[in-house]
């Protein structure tokens, strides 16, 4: 039993505290894919960029805004309002991009800079957000059709 609890999604929630909204107990559904798709603009896409799924080592950060107060006696108190922002940041690294992909990447980044874009990720999750590093840092790893790129994306799950 313990083994299952350590591997499967299963938060145990009891409705005892009405002051805090508990995390959702609905198990996430993922549809793995070999590609990720960026679309711009988010609302009515006119430009699409599809590249292979990111390399292992991708990072997913959730940063919650809260305030902290330390009393003279040394007691630490934290405060948070449910309306305060939560930053969801994805750091993705792509490799094995062809030379033609590179041109498409630059075209997409130049068009979408500072605009809201859509991201359909490799788990089938649809995101809405902005690309934080639109400079398009591409590295040629090999002589031909072997380019690497990294993207930092901040958004929310739709």
């Amino acid at each position, binding site marked *: 039993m*313990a083994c299952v*609890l*350590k*591997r*499967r*999604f*299963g*938060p*145990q*929630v*009891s*409705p*005892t*505290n009405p002051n*805090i*909204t*508990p*995390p*959702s107990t609905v*198990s*996430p559904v*993922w549809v793995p894919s070999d590609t990720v798709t960026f679309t711009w603009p988010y609302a009515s896409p006119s430009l699409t960029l599809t590249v292979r799924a990111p390399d*292992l*080592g*991708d*990072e*997913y*950060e*959730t*940063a*919650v*805004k*809260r305030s902290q107060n330390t009393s003279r006696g*040394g007691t*630490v108190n*934290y*405060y*948070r309002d449910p309306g305060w922002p*939560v930053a969801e940041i994805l750091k993705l690294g792509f490799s094995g991009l062809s030379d033609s992909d590179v041109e498409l990447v630059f075209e997409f980044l130049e068009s979408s800079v500072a605009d809201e874009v859509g991201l359909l990720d490799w*788990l089938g999750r649809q995101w809405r957000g902005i690309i934080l590093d639109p400079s398009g840092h591409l590295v040629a790893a090999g002589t031909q059709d072997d380019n690497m790129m990294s993207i930092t994306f901040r958004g929310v799950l739709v």
Partner: protein
Amino acid sequence: MNNSTAFMAPHNLPQTTIVLPNPKLSNDVVGVNQVIVKPFTDGSIKTYKRTSNRRIFSLSFELTQAKDEELRRFVRAYSAVQWRFFHWDQTTWAVYLLKPEYRSVSTAIDEYKEASLELEGFRLS
């Protein structure tokens, strides 16, 4: 010795419990005691201390994708309240999340994530 680690929050009125595998080796725990040494002109030295029963835990977990999502939702919901931490050595602690960020990185084993937590608190039992 337990073969799992659990968190319950909020500590004072528990609402949600999650069970995780034990953290990886090289997790560490430190105290938060402080000492200040002040030399005086007469050649003496005075020491001031600030003692505390609190500890800081740095834990690193290797989680399935589902468990990673479960812990992320838990952190999102309870980042500003005290947690109850059921340690694998069968002790129980009341802790706060030290940094309100939760970051996970996919590992070389596909579908597994590596995530770290820093917790500070005191022992209950």
